[in-house]
């Protein structure tokens, strides 16, 4: 399951109030989620969860599930 907080952050940045994503969702599945809005997503998730990503960590992200896992690893560790 994708956190409601993460869902809400994605909806805010991408301005898609009805957006529903799951673990397998990838950026190209979502209209307007291009490479620059992707950066905005990451910066917004940083703010939302109070974590800091390294650019190496985020280059390897392939799906929303990966992003969720990264956030969980950061908030628990």
């Amino acid at each position, binding site marked *: 399951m994708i956190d409601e907080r993460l869902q809400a952050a994605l909806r805010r940045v991408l301005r898609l109030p009805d957006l529903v994503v799951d673990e397998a969702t990838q950026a190209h599945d979502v209209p*307007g989620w291009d490479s620059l809005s992707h950066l905005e997503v990451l*910066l917004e998730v940083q703010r939302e969860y109070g974590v800091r990503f390294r*650019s190496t960590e*985020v*280059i390897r992200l392939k799906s929303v599930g990966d992003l969720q896992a990264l956030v969980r690893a950061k908030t628990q560790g």
Partner: protein
Amino acid sequence: MPFHSYGFILLFLPLALAGFHLLLRLRAPRAALGFVTLASLALYATWDVRYVALVVPLILADLAVAHGMRASAARHPGIARGLLMTGLAINLGALAYCKYAGFFVENLERLTDFDVILHTVVLPIGISFLTFQKIAFLVDVYRGDVEDLDWLRYAGFVLFFPKLLSGPIAYHGELAPQLATLAQPAARNVTAGITLFTFGLAKKVLVADWVAGYASPLFDAAAQGAPLDLAASWGAVLSYGAEIYFDFSGYTDMALGAALLFGIRLPVNFDAPYRASDIADFWRRWHMTLSRFLREYLFVPLSFGTHWLGAASIPFSLLVTMLICGLWHGPRWTFVIWGALHGAYLVVHYVWNRSRRGVRREADVARSPFGPVLTFVAVTAAWAFFRAADVPTALAILKGMAGLNGVAGSLTHSDGALFAAFGALLLAWFGPTTQRIVSYEGPEQSRPSAKARPWIAWTPSPAWAISVGCLFAVCVMRLSRVTEFIYFRF
């Protein structure tokens, strides 16, 4: 000696290939790699022996730093970070000294009354390209992404002659695995390599140099103060836009083709950039390995590093990245302005896209011809700065493009320039790219998405062999009149 010279085509390349294949046949792949690396150094020395004296110590320094980072990464991360900074400082320092010291001093003198005496500095060809490849390697080692620190494979990666002088800007992770498993390339790859090399030679010799014959006199006239009318100024920038595309993508095709003869796949550098639907798309198709490096090693870290700027961090990082991209091409204000223009284009594109998020996209302008046309015109206008001798000349040409110097005047070159530019640009807009004709694919990391085969597709057949052979012969006969590759100056 450049790719399009008798010395390279008739002497260097055959000798390098013969030695390489002989050593592979003797089952000595490491000796074959050593041979190609030494041959690359020899080729570099034909320009200037001092280049070798500069590049070899830098390679040794990189290796020392890389081994030091690996040894200290786990227990002393502070030392590893310090070593990374040292490695970056050495490489950027060498680049800054060779390329930008004169520019810095000149502008310092203009601002102050100082009179600084600076000895002429040697500027090794390709150092801008080498520096970025070495930086990516050092950063990757620091991040723990590099397994293979073999010294010969690193030297071979840096010096491999097909990409030594003007890229593509390959990553160590793309080349080292290929250098570790050198083998006789399949016959199909060799013939594809010869075909790609010939196409690149034809782009340079037959197209780029032909349109340059129209672009250069017009830019020269503008530099001497002649007002270019509407037709002449558009003729100048359009034919230059055609020239630089066919020049640099021609060089790249020759690099990729030459590498294939050794069984090595270099990353793709061009994907029909003048067909781009928007400016971000242009930078995904133009000098792709430069924009990839700038995106991954400058823009993304910069965006994260400036997250405290909030919504401004992405536009700020776009602008800074493109300013550095401009300056990378050379120490001139015209390049800085060219970079600033592209940065501004990208910011406008970003803000526009941002404002349209969540809007239904069916009627998006990006899908109409408006997007590609606007992108092409914006890119073309920026070429005025890229090519002009100085900023006033570029502004004069832009004035002419706006129609402020009249529609058609006295300059006789302008009709020919427009005709030549459109002839070449038709190929760039509607023709299949040479890589797709030969179904070329780079190393996996940079592979473009699978696309349908074009209407004209190369196969290893007698008909293609004869056609490519004739094209090659025509190009070789014209070699005595050709000019230098534009990107050798960067």
